[in-house]
């Protein structure tokens, strides 16, 4: 970091040279349940993949949320371009198990949705700007397309497709080994969009908050908690905040595991849905 002035080495190649990988461990976040780089429930300002500003990276995830009366599975991919732009796709499937029969849908009835996401880092660096207050700030969109339009309309949902818009601010505070994130999401989604968008009780966009705080306890281990408020648009079933307590472990540069205790409150009239969130991610 303090080197005598020497003749330029062979590295003084032309600008624009592409390079694979190079990002520091865990600084691309993990995969949120909606497919964006983030925590478990929250979308963060970090860009997915192991790339730096000179490359392209990618991340794939498979997530399983086991609740008392439902199962949520999510799988998807995200591509990070030059640590600047993130494009993501996730497919979610929500299995109503026995509750489906009680709700009159049939046992094991599944709600599904596809989520197409895009995120752009606007300003700041969560990692390098340790001498500045300014966090890394990104804006993003998530276009969601649910697959059970007739049911969604029957329970009061207004649309089966919708788009969330969010702004996220993430800061890694190295001097305290902390990672903090705050996201404001403008949304009409019911249960993340699985039950459509808008409802008989409310059909307007609402600003909702996603907060995460974690501590780097080891080089490859981040533990923390998240809190996410959600709209409650449907008259038949109130929707509450979600929260989780998570541990994200990087087994290597390419493999990470996230485990969390998650509380989604009441889901489709079934009370107290708290359970286990497990996710495996592979990244390049």
């Amino acid at each position, binding site marked *: 970091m*303090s080197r005598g002035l*020497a003749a330029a080495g062979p590295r003084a190649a032309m*600008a624009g040279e592409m390079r694979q990988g190079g990002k520091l461990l865990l600084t691309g976040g993990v995969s949120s349940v909606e497919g964006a780089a983030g925590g478990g429930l929250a979308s963060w300002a970090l860009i997915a993949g192991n790339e730096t*500003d000179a490359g392209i990276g990618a991340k794939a995830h498979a997530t399983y949320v086991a609740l008392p009366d439902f199962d949520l599975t999510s799988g998807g991919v995200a591509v990070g371009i030059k640590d600047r732009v993130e494009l993501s796709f996730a497919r979610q499937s929500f299995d109503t198990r026995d509750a489906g029969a009680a709700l009159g849908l049939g046992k094991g009835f599944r709600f599904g949705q596809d989520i197409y996401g895009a995120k752009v880092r606007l300003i700041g660096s969560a*990692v390098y700007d340790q001498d500045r207050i300014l966090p890394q700030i990104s804006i993003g969109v998530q276009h969601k397309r649910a697959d059970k339009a007739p049911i969604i309309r029957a329970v009061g949902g207004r649309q089966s497709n919708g788009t969330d818009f969010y702004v996220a601010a993430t800061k890694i505070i190295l001097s305290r080994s902390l990672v903090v994130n705050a996201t404001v999401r403008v949304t009409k989604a019911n249960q993340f969009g699985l039950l459509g968008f808008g409802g008989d009780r409310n059909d307007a966009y609402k600003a909702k908050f996603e907060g995460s705080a974690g501590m780097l306890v080891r080089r490859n281990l981040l533990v923390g908690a998240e809190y996410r408020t959600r709209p409650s648009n449907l008259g038949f079933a109130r929707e509450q905040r979600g929260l989780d307590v998570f541990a994200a472990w990087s087994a290597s540069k390419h493999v990470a595991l996230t485990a969390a205790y998650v509380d989604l409150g009441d889901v489709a009239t079934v009370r107290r849905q708290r359970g286990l969130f497990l996710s495996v991610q592979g990244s390049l």
Partner: protein
Amino acid sequence: MISFFLASLLSMQAVTPPNEDPVEPYEHSNANAGARQFEGEDMFRAFHGKEGIARVVDGMVDRNIADPRISDIFKGQDVVRLRRTLKEQFCYILNGGCDYSGREMKSSHKDLGLQAADFNALVENLQASMRDEKVPYLAQNRMLAKLAPMKRDTVVR
């Protein structure tokens, strides 16, 4: 007048230390270290004093030279001087009572053509070296917080 000029040059530039190549004269200043010092002695102690700092720096430089990702950067460099000035820089930042006699970050890196991935590779090698020295993890991150902003001055493309 000329002798006065020479004398002031000499005051800025000590004699070249053994086994180092001479460098163009420049003004010595602790401000060149590119980071503010820690307060107190906790951090200096966490690095086990000057001996620990020397082991951390040597371990990092050894790893860098052997690291296929970044070894090219160090070819043709004065590694003897590099080790000395890095030890001074770390000791100064860790409030170990040292002065930094090296160059400031921008001018010393301007011709190296570093990318973010090079900077990160060096950080990983420093982390491995700090782990070897058993520097507590939270103290490692406090040090990295001082060094991370140097990316702005050292990474040029």
